[in-house]
């Protein structure tokens, strides 16, 4: 299988120094790619570049072999969906209404959701175990439930690429693993290409097929989790001494502060 999305030599600057520099990266269908790195290493910038919100000054971002600058906003939203770290709803919407927002790029100006749209929406709700929430107001949901609803909304866009920006940062342990289970099964079942940015190194290492470690805007290391999550890599990038051993059950790398 070829690549869905590839970044070639991408450089992005907010004005003074480069937030991303000489960055090469690609992702295949059905691949769950973990992006890690210390604060300010360019993780969120990377997601915003992929989603066309930030336009890189250097290099190309190719989506299905076409530069993303050739897509208009709704065309891009049909291919790339973002699940943001935080999301505020200032007015009360039901879960169903929120997930239906994902159909926006598929509908014409005066069009209402039709049968096919609702099939997609209900499938997204079912896949994320949100069906029983559909009549509830988004304001009443717990953090984990809300995160699932936002993932459902991303699925309703029927994208090929999903970007998750720290999807578990505000969740407790149980919800964290639940969200990662969900992301992993969606990726592999539906053949989606998923980027997940997370500070949760252990969880990311456990679930992701491949990992990318960013340092000051470039790829410091990439490969399967075992290759990337090493004590020397983490010490070099994060600047703190760590011990990396194996989780006794899953066998995936485990990081502890020394």
């Amino acid at each position, binding site marked *: 299988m070829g690549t869905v999305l590839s970044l070639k030599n991408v450089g992005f600057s907010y004005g003074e120094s480069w937030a991303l520099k000489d960055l090469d990266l690609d992702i295949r269908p059905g691949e769950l790619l973990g992006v890690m790195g210390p604060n300010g290493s360019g993780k969120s910038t990377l997601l915003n570049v992929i*989603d066309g*919100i930030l336009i890189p000054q250097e290099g190309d971002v190719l989506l299905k072999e076409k530069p993303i600058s050739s897509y*208009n*906003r*709704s*065309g*891009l*939203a*049909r291919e790339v*969906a*973002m699940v*943001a770290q935080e*999301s*505020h*709803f*200032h*007015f*009360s*919407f*039901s879960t*169903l*209404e*929120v997930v*239906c*927002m*994902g159909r*926006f*790029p598929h*509908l014409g*100006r*005066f069009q*209402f*959701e*039709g*049968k096919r*749209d*609702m*099939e997609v929406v*209900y499938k997204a709700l*079912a896949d994320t175990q949100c*069906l029983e929430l559909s009549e509830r107001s988004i304001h009443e949901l717990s953090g984990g439930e809300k995160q699932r609803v936002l993932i459902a*909304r991303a699925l309703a*866009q029927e994208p090929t690429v999903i970007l998750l920006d720290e999807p578990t940062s505000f969740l407790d342990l149980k919800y964290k693993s639940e969200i990662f289970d969900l992301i992993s099964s969606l990726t592999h079942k539906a053949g989606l290409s998923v980027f997940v940015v997370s500070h949760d190194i252990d969880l990311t290492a456990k679930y992701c097929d491949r990992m990318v470690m960013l340092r000051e805007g470039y790829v410091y290391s990439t490969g399967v989790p075992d290759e990337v999550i090493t004590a020397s890599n983490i010490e070099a990038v994060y600047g703190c001494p760590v011990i990396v051993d194996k989780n006794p059950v899953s066998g995936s790398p485990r990081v502890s502060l020394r």
Partner: protein
Amino acid sequence: MTNLTIKGPLSPMRVIRISLVLCFFLILSIFISLRLGTADVTLDQLWGLFIGDPNVKETVRLIVLKIRLPRILLAGLVGFSLSLGGVVFQALLRNPLADPFILGVSSGGAFGAVLGIMFGLGFNFGIPLMSYAGALLTIFLVLEIGKRKMGMESSTILLAGVIINAFFTAIIMFFVSTAVDDRLHSMLFWLYGDLSQSDYNQSIIVFPIVLAAFGVLYGLSRHLNLITAGEETALQLGVDVKKAKMICFLVVSLVIGLVVAFSGLIGFVGLVVPHLGRMVLGSDHRLLMPVSALGGAIFLIAADTLARTVVSPSELPVGVITAFIGAPFFIYLLKTRGSKWARS
């Protein structure tokens, strides 16, 4: 799962059904308002006028067709516009307290209109145009003042609006107080919103423009739904946010400028009606927009009927009535919803 009834969150039929119900109440309110006033008009007389009965007294014909009807029609159109403007501003600023009056857009329009009067421009074209320019200028001024490094913050924008509002009102007061022009003196009354100078011409100008504006804004109703969830979210879901916002601001300023030129400063309509709509029917703008607009028309017709009857045979500026209802409502909103929007 397979037996699940596939139902959308909102069907076009529901929008049409609810709009028709409100249209019925709108027509009802027009009839009630036609009857009420210093001189009572009976149902028989109204019906006589309606079917063109020649036996209806000339004074009744004059009162109903020359005085009350044009005023009621204008009240309806003004209420429709102010409430529509309120809904759109609330969505764009993600704040239920936004409204053309509170944001200073109305007084900006009024300022433009006063300038137009001083320059001796015509009431049917020149003055509304100046009023539009004033409203448009104000909204960009308010957005610019309220701008922060990280996007915009809605409470700062509201505050900027309040200040601009006070400033323009003061300028208008200054012009009114120092003017030698007789026409400006009547403007004092107009500062509190006044529909007593209505004639059919105004409605004929306002009606097509407001209708077209509604069409354009309704085409953006789903965009507005997404913008209320955050501009970045809207962008990610495929909304061309910049373009949508620009169109909304241009169109709403046009409508507000226009109605302010004919009716003066009427506050709080765009605050009360959309909020009630949201409470009862939810936040989907595909439904909320027509409901608020029609509800605004009914609300202002009722308020203006009160304005010309409560102290009969004298009358109040309609803005006094809407402020009596709206100001406590604003405080209630601030108290109950304040914590929710203050967070971001």
